[in-house]
């Protein structure tokens, strides 16, 4: 029988979660300057509202959502808008950003606001409130959360899945949220179940977090139909498709969304964030970030104002060790290397992992020896070996025929490849090229 608690294939990188798994979440002090890029979520970037010289309070909008698949951006600290211009973005490019000089003597109390009572709201009104609060997927994807709360007509959703797998090595962001704020998670689930009109929710947590599973089970309200399910520890267990297969046995058809098989998946951090919207009325202006890795002196779990610079986090965590060579935003399997210590933490930044030469990849590559390791690792059963050969030969159209679109860029193939071929990097480039060709054709 198929293992109901997992999926087939995948890899087992060293977890290294012990660095921060027991560290309570601490609040980082407000930095001197906050940088808020307008592009922090998947979809259309936010539309600028603020002007240089504007005085903003904590929680004020500095940019408005531009369309439905877009969210506003709020000031994460009180201060004065200093400048609006190009600034290093965590994805490696430059992006338009609002820079705010933080008022040192401000008590940082948000303006009084009306807290909506969720029971009395229609689904549409909840969706609006969530969009207005700027909530996005906090697991790294940064997809606007409210979009998933409004399934199109004709799509029937029966199950809400809460993603607490946190399969990326090193990260303990979701882990600590589940351990320290289990009630908030349950409250967020209650609001979401109400909005989606579903009767059932499952929280999936990898079994390497027994304290999180226990905390969630102990605090579970009697009237809430929620299951807490331990999952096999394997990367990429936290990918939507893999998680749904493990928890429900359903396969998301190629090219479709989880909605089409009756499932909505939300990250546990986003759920806690929704809970906060309906508890305090505060929008998404801060998030939990794990700062960890062998290259950082005091690995920690922090609540960080969105827009704090990487430099501030590293300084707060005691600085870097001498042998640090690489700083990654997100987990080490999917995250992006940072070239600039001034890059800000954005809504989708799950962690900061500082690696040393010992952990990072070697540079030397060898030819593909057709060992088949990548086929045994690929969770969606494409043929990375073949795709890699096609990419090296520049035959990009044929890559699309070979199911390039089904690749989720999880990096399992690159992780196992004994020849150290940067497979997922080549696939990311090929996907970008395919998108460009499609746009040119249209």
């Amino acid at each position, binding site marked *: 029988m198929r293992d109901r608690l997992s999926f087939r294939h995948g890899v087992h*990188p060293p977890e290294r979660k012990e660095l921060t798994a027991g560290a309570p979440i601490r609040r980082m002090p407000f930095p001197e300057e906050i940088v808020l890029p307008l592009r922090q979520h998947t979809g259309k970037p936010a539309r600028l509202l603020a002007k240089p010289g504007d005085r903003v309070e904590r929680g004020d909008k500095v940019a408005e959502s531009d369309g439905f698949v877009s969210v506003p951006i709020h000031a994460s600290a009180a201060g004065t808008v200093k400048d609006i211009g190009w600034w290093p973005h965590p994805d490696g490019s430059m992006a338009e950003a609002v820079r705010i000089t933080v008022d040192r003597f401000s008590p940082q109390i948000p303006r009084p606001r009306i807290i909506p009572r969720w029971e009395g709201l229609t689904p549409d009104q909840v969706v609006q409130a969530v969009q207005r609060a700027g909530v996005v997927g906090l697991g790294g994807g940064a997809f606007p959360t409210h979009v998933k709360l409004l399934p199109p007509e004709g799509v029937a959703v029966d199950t809400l899945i809460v993603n607490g797998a946190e399969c990326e090595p090193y990260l303990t962001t979701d882990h600590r949220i589940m351990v320290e704020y289990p009630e908030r998670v349950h409250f967020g689930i209650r609001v979401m179940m109400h909005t989606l009109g579903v009767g059932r929710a499952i929280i999936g947590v990898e079994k390497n977090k027994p304290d999180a599973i226990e905390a969630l089970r102990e605090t579970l309200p009697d009237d809430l139909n929620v299951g807490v399910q331990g999952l096999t520890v394997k990367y990429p267990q936290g990918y939507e*498709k893999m998680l749904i297969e493990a928890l429900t046995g359903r*396969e998301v*058809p*190629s*090219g*479709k969304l989880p909605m089409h098989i009756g499932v909505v998946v939300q990250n546990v951090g986003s759920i806690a964030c929704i809970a906060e919207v309906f508890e305090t009325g505060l929008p998404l202006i801060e998030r939990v970030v794990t700062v960890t890795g062998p290259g950082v002196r005091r690995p920690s779990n922090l609540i960080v104002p969105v827009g704090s610079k990487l430099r501030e986090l590293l300084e707060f965590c005691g600085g*870097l060790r001498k042998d*640090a*060579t*690489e*700083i*990654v935003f997100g987990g*080490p399997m*999917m*995250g*992006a*290397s*940072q*070239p*600039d*210590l001034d890059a800000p933490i954005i809504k989708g930044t799950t962690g900061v*992992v500082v*690696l040393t030469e010992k*952990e*990072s*990849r*070697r540079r030397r590559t*060898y*030819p593909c*020896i*057709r*060992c*088949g*390791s990548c*086929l045994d690792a690929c*969770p*969606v*059963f*494409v*043929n990375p070996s*073949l*795709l890699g*050969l096609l990419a090296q030969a520049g035959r990009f159209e*044929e*890559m699309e*025929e*070979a*199911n390039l679109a*089904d690749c989720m860029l999880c*990096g399992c193939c*690159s*992780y*196992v490849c*004994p*020849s*150290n071929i940067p497979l*997922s*990097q080549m696939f*990311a480039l090929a996907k970008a090229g395919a998108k460009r060709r499609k746009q040119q054709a249209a």
Partner: protein
Amino acid sequence: MTETGHLGELQLQLRASPHLKAPDSTPRIMWSVVGSLVPVVAAATYYFGPSAPLVVAAATLGALLTERAFGQGGSLGDGSAAITGILLGLTLPPGLPLWMAFLGGAFGIGFGKLVFGGLGQNVFNPALLGRAFLQAAFPVALTTWPATEGGWWQLRGDNLALPFMSPAPVDAVSSATPLGLMKFESTPTDTWPLMLGDTSGSLGETAGLLILVCGGYLALKNYLNWRIPASIFGTVAVLSGLLFLLDSARFPDPLFALFSGGLVLGAVYMATDMVTSPVTHAGAWLFGVGIGALVVAIRTWGGLPEGVMYAILLMNALVPFIDRATQPRVFGTSGPGTGAEAAS
């Protein structure tokens, strides 16, 4: 792909994700295979005396020098040329003139691998191609099996013959291999000497059990696809078992079929060459069944007593088709990946 930025005193490196890497590497796999062959060469030395390491060394030298001369820079370090040389050496008779072994190694790497574009590009197993070349060029030398009598330290046959001179008349006592005895004289050999290696034959044809142990080690480390030898042995056992049931006087029993000739060496070390075998699991089973069936067919109805080499080379040629036919079902779809056109 990799750049280094200077940020104060800090040197930050930019790399593409994933930033972690499993510890296995291509050179590590290849050198592990080389390491696992050391006991096999030692066993050959035990049975055949100093001739064994000399022939293996000559074949390996031919392979390494050719890789060095015509291969891409630094490709000696990946260890694959060394494997080709040692494996070729193990398929040769102990009394072979060393210059022939050297030539076979050079041919195997040059025409078996480098002309295709080097590591990972070749269609046929380079060691077997080298042996096929030698068999075509020097059929007599390749089928002369000196007897194992005489002192251990004595060279078997004419190892030191000069290139292209007519070989000295063989005055050593010659003997037939177990398969030859079976084929041409219908004389079986006892099973235990066969398994342990105390018979006549090529250097690596003899120590079947030891080769199985060494291959088992590689399979445990996942450096060798166990499905290929498993399906080869299974197919050979079943088919030769059927023949044995039909006529036990003419055909050997399955255990003899498994442990005679180059079957164990071929199944464990040659057919499992990653480059020239299928990448899918289903493909590996098919590939092994094909080899097993061809081995039994050639041994039974062919003109030669042994057919492992040709069986593997023939199936090597079919690998692109096998891969194409056995692509796994892509997640969330009803059928296999369609990128098959590109396999060639």
